[in-house]
């Protein structure tokens, strides 16, 4: 008993050392990162960097280079990350044009435009740095050095670009009674003149006391040209796809019945094609 009490000084010593060590390593002489990769940035800065990737892609239409840049973030699904950022931008009242650039890259990421071809020339790109190669410099410990990694990424050139300005026509309009999808879901699909899904197309939904604006391509896993909107019962909606397209009116939740006679609200499927 007396011997146990006498050993408390060891625990006291460890605690004193622990407090001093933590204070020194976190406050007095903390680790400082240098030569970091974009994956090490904070969430807001990562969003800013990703936005820049999307804007550069819109400018140069070089999907290979944009994909190489997106791989720097170690995202499991870059297209999904881009789509989610586009949605956050719109939800936060941000610039719709920026959201559109993000949505465009999200849509093209896994579905490259058939018009893009790999050129024979190669230009430098950036390769992702493996986590173990990222340099972490600690002021109190020796620094690991590394040389910048630059590799060659095939560069896509463009024969022609689809235009989003051409008006869209309604090609198909049908009520959807499917209990497997959310009730009152308004589904929109936009395709270009060749029938290929088209991302980044503006969709405007209006009703008696409100409106909503969004873009196709935010759900690349469904289709690059897909968008949807959740309707409420007893409200009639109008919808326009594109900036100069035909306005579709009289959209509302329709009563449906499943196989057991239970009623639920159905939705709409609208397909638009570019002229």
């Amino acid at each position, binding site marked *: 008993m007396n011997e146990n009490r006498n050993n408390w000084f060891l625990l006291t010593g460890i605690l004193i050392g622990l407090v001093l060590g*933590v204070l020194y390593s*976190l406050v007095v002489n903390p680790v400082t990162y240098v030569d970091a990769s974009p994956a090490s940035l904070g969430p807001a800065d990562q969003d800013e960097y990703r936005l820049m990737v999307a804007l550069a892609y819109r400018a140069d239409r070089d999907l290979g280079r944009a994909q190489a840049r997106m791989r720097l973030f170690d995202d499991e699904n870059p297209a999904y990350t881009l789509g989610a950022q586009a949605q956050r931008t719109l939800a936060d009242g941000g610039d719709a044009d920026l959201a559109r650039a993000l949505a465009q890259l999200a849509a093209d990421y896994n579905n490259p435009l058939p018009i893009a071809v790999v050129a024979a020339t190669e230009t430098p790109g950036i390769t992702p740095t493996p986590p173990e190669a990222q340099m972490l410099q600690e002021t109190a410990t020796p620094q690991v050095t590394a040389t910048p990694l630059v590799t060659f990424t095939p560069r896509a050139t463009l024969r022609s670009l689809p235009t989003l300005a051409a008006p869209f026509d309604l090609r198909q309009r049908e009520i959807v009674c499917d209990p497997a999808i959310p009730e009152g879901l308004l589904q929109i699909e936009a395709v270009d003149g060749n029938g290929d899904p088209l991302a980044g197309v503006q969709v405007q939904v209006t009703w008696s006391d409100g409106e909503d604006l969004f873009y196709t391509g935010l759900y690349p896993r469904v289709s690059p040209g897909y968008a949807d909107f959740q309707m409420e019962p007893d409200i009639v909606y109008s919808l326009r796809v594109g900036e100069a397209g035909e306005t579709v009116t009289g959209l509302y939740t329709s009563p449906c019945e499943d196989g057991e006679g239970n009623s639920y609200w159905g939705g709409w499927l609208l397909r638009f094609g570019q002229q």
Partner: protein
Amino acid sequence: MPTKRTTYFLLAIFAGLVIGLAFGWFVKPAAVRRVAPQHLRQDYQTDYVLMVAETYASEGNAASAVERLHFLGDEPVNVYVRQAMLTAGQTGYSQQDVETMNALSMALQSWIPQPDEDIP
């Protein structure tokens, strides 16, 4: 001459110190990785400048380019562009990329903020 008890006490402090330093330098930083953009490796900064230059070439908006370049830090923005052009030359960027950055650099030198523009 220190007693055995004093020696053990000092050893315990040393052990605690080692554990505390290991936590602060190796465990905690790995869990919380929040690096400011100015600590990006130079080739990543160069690529960022190239993206701004490509966007500027498409949009022609110098004010936006200046704002975007301030992402890299508080230095005058042309410092970042010049450094990027230097790195691009050393690491084998294409002539087209260097020219794109050069066009941005020239535009920034002659750019004067307008009263109705957001001055970063």
